[in-house]
């Protein structure tokens, strides 16, 4: 590959090489998407089932299942470490996307912890809540799932566009639509069940299906092993 080039060949070579590298996904990215996809889908489905089956007074215990999300982090960091060890190239898009997903995680954690703290404060001063206004202790939790879906939509849509991988983009659009629909169902009876079931479907469409498709794509054209 040490031949001299004419000007046209030079430009063609530059274009070919840039195209080779620009949308590179690291091998293992799909596994991270699948890890969180299956975890969210499994927990939301189990929560929905418990909400539908537990007695009314104790059904809120179903939400404790969400603490299981913490279990995803050790596996997440193991996968990231493996990717870092095996990667052969780091693209600018990849660096940018990592930061988008870090921002996504911080946003989710901020809102969840903010709501937890708010609930604890409201409960601490429960006597100050006027009779008939007890809903303010829990009302904000109704907005959590739509907010999560909005963030899922954002991160998936941007990733899909950046990597030019349509299933992720469509997954993002589905999450946006699900968020929009849920915002119109806040007043419905059984809203928590509706939200958990919608979250389950969104996790499957947004993460699980694109994750499996990406896994297949990685085997064909992704660098890193």
């Amino acid at each position, binding site marked *: *590959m*040490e*031949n*001299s*080039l004419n*000007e*046209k*060949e*030079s*430009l063609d*070579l*530059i274009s*070919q*090489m*840039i195209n*080779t*590298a*620009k949308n*590179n996904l690291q091998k293992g990215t799909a596994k991270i998407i699948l890890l969180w996809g299956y975890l969210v889908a499994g927990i939301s489905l189990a929560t929905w089932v418990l909400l539908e089956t537990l007695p009314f007074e104790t059904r809120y215990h179903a939400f404790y299942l969400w603490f299981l999300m913490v279990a995803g982090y050790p596996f997440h960091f193991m996968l990231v470490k493996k990717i870092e*060890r095996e*990667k*052969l*190239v*780091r*693209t*600018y898009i*990849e*660096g940018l996307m990592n930061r988008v997903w870090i921002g996504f995680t911080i946003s989710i954690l901020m809102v969840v912890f903010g709501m937890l703290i708010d609930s604890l404060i409201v409960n601490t001063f429960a006597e100050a809540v006027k009779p008939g206004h007890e809903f303010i202790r829990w009302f904000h939790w109704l907005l959590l799932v739509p907010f999560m879906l909005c963030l899922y939509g954002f991160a998936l849509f941007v990733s899909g566009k950046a990597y030019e991988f349509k299933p992720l983009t469509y997954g993002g659009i589905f999450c946006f639509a699900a968020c929009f629909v849920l915002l119109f169902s806040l007043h419905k009876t059984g809203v928590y069940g509706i939200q958990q079931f919608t979250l389950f479907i969104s996790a499957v469409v947004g993460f699980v299906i694109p994750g499996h498709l990406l896994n297949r794509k990685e085997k064909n054209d992704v*660098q890193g092993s």
Partner: protein
Amino acid sequence: MFKDLDPLLHSQLRLAVMSLLISTEEADFVFIREKTASTAGNLSVQIEKLHEAGYISVKKSFKGKMPRTTCRISPAGISAFEKYVEALSEYLQPK
């Protein structure tokens, strides 16, 4: 008046290496070798020439027990690459 093309970049393998590096933050020697379909010996020589010219930085490390070479384009390399592309455009679209 046409600009001279940088002789260091006007070579198939060195230009391929620089094109790969300009579109990545950093790339492993193995990745560059696979994408340019070159031999390890020839690639090492060309990478050394680009390194000596200050166009790229080269980092040697270990991946487990295996030696690993990672390349990254330098600001001087980016500038040289931009000038090269600009000169090429002038050749292809003379005013």
